């Protein structure tokens, strides 16, 4: 009897621990004093739309394809990066009293509009420290606001409101999620390398019904379309030898979505941690591993600014899903040169795809991000 009760107690303890682990993110501090992602993240919403200080890097990434009443097509990108420049515990060494300018958080914003009809790509960048209301990320009454100067995203219960006003163009959009957040990898734990710590917490809103205004050359244009939002945070995701990545998001005409990323190694091979997520019509994710897909560049384009050679057309084959797509950049020159902020030169552009899914013809719109082509990617901040 005693033995049975001991066994019962042990089972209870195990259950408790499992429950505890399942309900809480697995996080630890790295040797530098930053939090690291080491296991499933189990994000909860709306809380996890908010910032995650303690991790070195975090971003809120919006991309989308929009259509004006005139028939003109536009791609856009609006990204907010948060970078923690020193470990959390270093605040104890700050002088007292501290200046209002003293902070650990620096925010960077990148925005772009690809005017696909006029074949023109415009981009802008911003950077500010989280001080004196110049930039920040906060949560109040379940709404998350991330802003840098006059760029912002406000994530409410049922919408995301984006605003970015640059010298060249403006973006004012309201996005409504058509599907719940999709957690990538294992409950949001997205591996980016060989060890457990080389990972990020990553979720997406894969189908955001978008409506609003763009302002280009002083002209306001009413637009609507679909957007994609990624929210990801980590401390040291990339391992040595990885020179950059190709990332792809597609919204397919059959109401499914696809996200893939390929971690490119110095030796030209794709790292085994590269993975993806397929989202079915109901919003259920299916994790894809490196072995599940092949991605072949079909065409290249050389940037006149950085001389980097980027692929601008691809063939994608996902065997388990019977997906075969040809993806083409809607505009070759969608390069982002961000010398004034992160210093990273990358390609972030609107793409279109055609092909088949389960032998049914499909088409898709989406965005591709290509890093490490101008020079090996190095975390800038």
């Amino acid at each position, binding site marked *: 009897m005693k033995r049975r009760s001991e066994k019962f107690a042990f089972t209870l303890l195990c259950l408790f621990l499992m429950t505890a682990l399942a309900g809480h993110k697995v996080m630890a501090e790295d040797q530098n004093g930053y939090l690291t992602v080491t296991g499933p993240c189990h994000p909860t919403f709306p809380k996890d739309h908010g910032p995650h200080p303690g991790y070195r890097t975090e971003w809120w990434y919006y991309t989308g394809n929009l259509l004006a009443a005139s028939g003109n097509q536009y791609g856009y990108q609006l990204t907010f990066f948060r970078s923690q420049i020193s470990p959390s515990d270093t605040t104890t060494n*700050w002088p007292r009293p*501290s*200046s209002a*300018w003293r*902070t650990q958080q620096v925010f960077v914003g990148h925005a772009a509009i690809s005017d696909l009809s006029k074949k023109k790509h415009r981009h802008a960048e911003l950077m500010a420290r989280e001080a004196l*209301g110049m930039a920040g990320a906060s949560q109040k009454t379940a709404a998350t606001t991330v802003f840098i*100067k*006059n760029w912002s995203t406000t994530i409410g219960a049922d919408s995301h409101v984006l605003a970015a006003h640059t010298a060249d163009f403006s973006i004012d959009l309201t996005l409504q999620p058509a599907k719940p957040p999709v957690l990538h990898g294992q409950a949001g734990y997205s591996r980016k390398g060989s060890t457990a710590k080389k990972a990020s917490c990553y979720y997406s809103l894969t189908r955001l019904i978008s409506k609003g205004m763009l302002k280009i050359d002083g002209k306001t244009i009413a637009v609507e379309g679909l957007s994609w939002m990624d929210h990801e945070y980590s401390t040291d995701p990339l391992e040595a030898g990885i020179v950059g990545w190709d990332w792809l998001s597609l919204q397919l005409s059959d109401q499914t979505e696809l996200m893939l990323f390929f971690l490119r190694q110095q030796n030209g091979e794709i790292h085994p941690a590269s993975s993806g997520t397929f989202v079915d019509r109901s919003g259920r994710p299916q994790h894809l591993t490196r072995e599940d897909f092949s991605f072949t560049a079909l065409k290249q384009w050389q940037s006149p600014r950085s001389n980097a050679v980027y692929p601008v057309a691809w063939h994608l084959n996902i065997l388990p899903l019977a997906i075969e797509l040809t993806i083409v950049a809607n505009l070759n020159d969608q390069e982002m040169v961000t010398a*004034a902020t992160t*210093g990273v030169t990358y390609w972030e552009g609107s793409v279109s795809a055609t092909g088949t899914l389960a032998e049914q013809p499909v088409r898709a719109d989406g965005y591709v991000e290509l890093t490490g082509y101008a020079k090996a990617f190095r975390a800038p901040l």
Partner: protein
Amino acid sequence: MKKFLFFSRLFIWFSLRDMRKHMGRAATVLFGIALGAAVFTSVRLSVNASLDSFTKSMDLIAGRADHVLTRPGGYVPEYLIARLLDHPMIRNASPVLTTYTRVSQDGSEPFLLIGFDPILDRPLRNWRINDKSGQSPVVWLDLLKEPFTLILGEPLARQLNRAPGDSLYLEHAHQKTRFKILGMLERSGLSLAEGGRIALTDIATFQEFTGLFGKVDRIDLQLKPLATARDRADIQRLLPESIQLNPPTAKRESGQMMIRAYQLNLSILSFASLFVGMFLVYSLVALNAASRRHELAILRATGASAYHVFFIFLAEGAFLGITGWLVAIPLGNFLIKYLLHGVSQTISTLFVRVQVDTLSLSVSEIAFGFAVTVGISILAAYQPAREAMQVAPKEALEISQLGMRPRKSPGQLAIWGLICILLVLPLSRLPAVLDMPLPGYLAILLLFVGFSLLAPWALQRISHSSSAVLLKRAGIPAYLASRYVRDSGTRTAVSVGALITAVALFTALVIMIYSFRQTVTYWTYETIKGDLFLTSKMGEINRFRYPIPQQVIDDLQDYRSEIDILPNRRFFLNYGKFPYEFELMDMQGFMQYASFFWLKGNPKAIRPMLKRGEGVIVSEVFSNRTGLTVGDVFKAQIEESYLELPIIGIVRDYRTQGGVVFYSMPHFNAQYHQTYWGGLRFFFKDRSQDLDLAVAKLRNDIIDRMGDKVDMYSGKGLRGAVLKIFDETFAVTTVLLLIALVIAALGIATTLTVLVLERSRQLNTLFAVGASFRQIRSMIFWEAGFMVVIGELAGVVCGFVLSCLLVFVINRQSFGWTFLYGVNWGALGASIPLIILTALAAALPAVKMVFRKPPATLLRER
């Protein structure tokens, strides 16, 4: 081309060969003109170097900002930054804080510490980390990460002997703190400001170091290119009323204006050397024209046109100018080393802080120096050339004894001279043009020209009227000398003119400097009264912008029984482009121990009004520069308060860097807003004790109790320092003056030598008919004596007139101040005989020349 070659050959044969033959006199003239050119160019290049350094620093610090937000006399609240960045027409905004700091107990000079946000500032200013030393290109990010870190300008790092990774202790009014050096700046952009003696730090560190939490000196803005006046008005509406939105050029322009006024004054003074040198050229070319009259006639008889002759003599002037300018290059190189330091120090003391690290050789400035030198040499040669072209070919057959006859009689010249002198008065009453006393300078030029034109007539009259007396009293040599000077015409007069110019300058400057010094001394002892002065650490260099620590003020209360403590606060403001200080002080206490140096208004009536805070008194400089006088209303925005107060008096004040407005501190605190104590002065209540001892004891007590948190100066030391600065300021002037005198002495020596050489035949005839060497030497000395005495007398008279112009016109229009006129009879009395002796000594070479050739040989010639 053919004509030019022919003319060149003619010039070489006729002029250059003759100059080579008389190498000594040509060399003397060349040296004189070279010295003048060297002084003129060096002075201008030195002031330009300071001007460039100032402008460059201002531009580099202002960066690409097109507007700047400031609060007059105060700080801009930092919370405005987010509001500004949100504005759609503002492209970039960057807050900036600057202060001078220094390495603790290092004894090294203070340097400029700039606190800014490296992120917001990137679009506005160019600065790059020198990554050759392996430093990370994102060192700027480490400024944000680590408190008390900085990046040094490379020259500063070299001077401090520090490298990245090292640390240093910096001291400031607020504290002394250890800083870590993260890197060095590349020698470009912002790092060139202040001669590279700058350091950059994050704004957070700056505020924590200086205690300036919540505020910044200014916010630099870059508006969008399409921003209109309406947008600017819209931005202004975002701001509190006390914040001003201006172009960043305002401060630069006011600094440039002051340096340019100084440059103009020094240029004019240095031009005097060239002006005196001009007499030398005239004298040599005139001699050549006169003594070679026979050769000229032959030249004319053999086919040369009158214009050929004219241009040959003009070319002589040009040759002297060009060669003199070339010789001036090595001379200038030597002079500039002294002037560069002296001038930049004077500008730093008087106007704006400059750090001259390089001498920029501006092509236009060198070309200007060349043009002026050659231009005045040609101008000096013009008259003799005109005379020479009058020589008729038939004179080739005559034996000329007459030499050059002036076209205008001394009487005619004297009338022109008088007209010039008479014009001085109306010109001196004209206002400045473009903030420059141009009518005043024209008056000075006319004064010199007028006295020089009077010289031949004066020489003629004085020699004529004194010849009979001299015959009786001083014998034949004196009589002959007076007759010769009377008949020698303009050539002798020209040298006298040079002497008049130099002596007038000397006299005027001696009077001006004396008047100035006496007035400043009086002002110092009246107004800068106090037994001990105390400011926050490095308060003076930081314009008293940091409050005296409260703990210090509290501790000082313990001394209340022995001393009276008079606090003050100075705000550095601008009235339009004119910089001035608004000084608050305890008028009641001040007037108990000290007083103002009243210029306008009734002190008896004004004092009680001042104590009651019923108005302000302004300095003479402020009044002259702004046009505001007693009865007008002084209006100013000072920090968050707007003042409108009547001007009730004008006082003399010789504080550098602009004018001053004084107001009662208790009334300002009561009626406007509370302000902190920026400085203090102490007066011992017991005035009968040994004050030096008491000051030393109090000073030591304060150091013992409060450490080195504050800077202190004894009243005696401070007054001494003021006068030392004064003397240093005039060091450059004195050097320029001495050089002008040297050139004038050269002029006398050349003229006398020339006169002797020209009259060799005559002198030898005298010798042949029985005159002794002694008598002939005596005669030459008498001639020199005539010239020198007349030159001196006229120079002194001219100098007195000039001194009035300098004191009451030039200084007032250039700097806004005047002085109590005073003549240093002692210095003048001692130096004028000295100048006479020096000038007479200049006759010695002439005497030696008299009998260089045997008389018989000379008499046989021709």
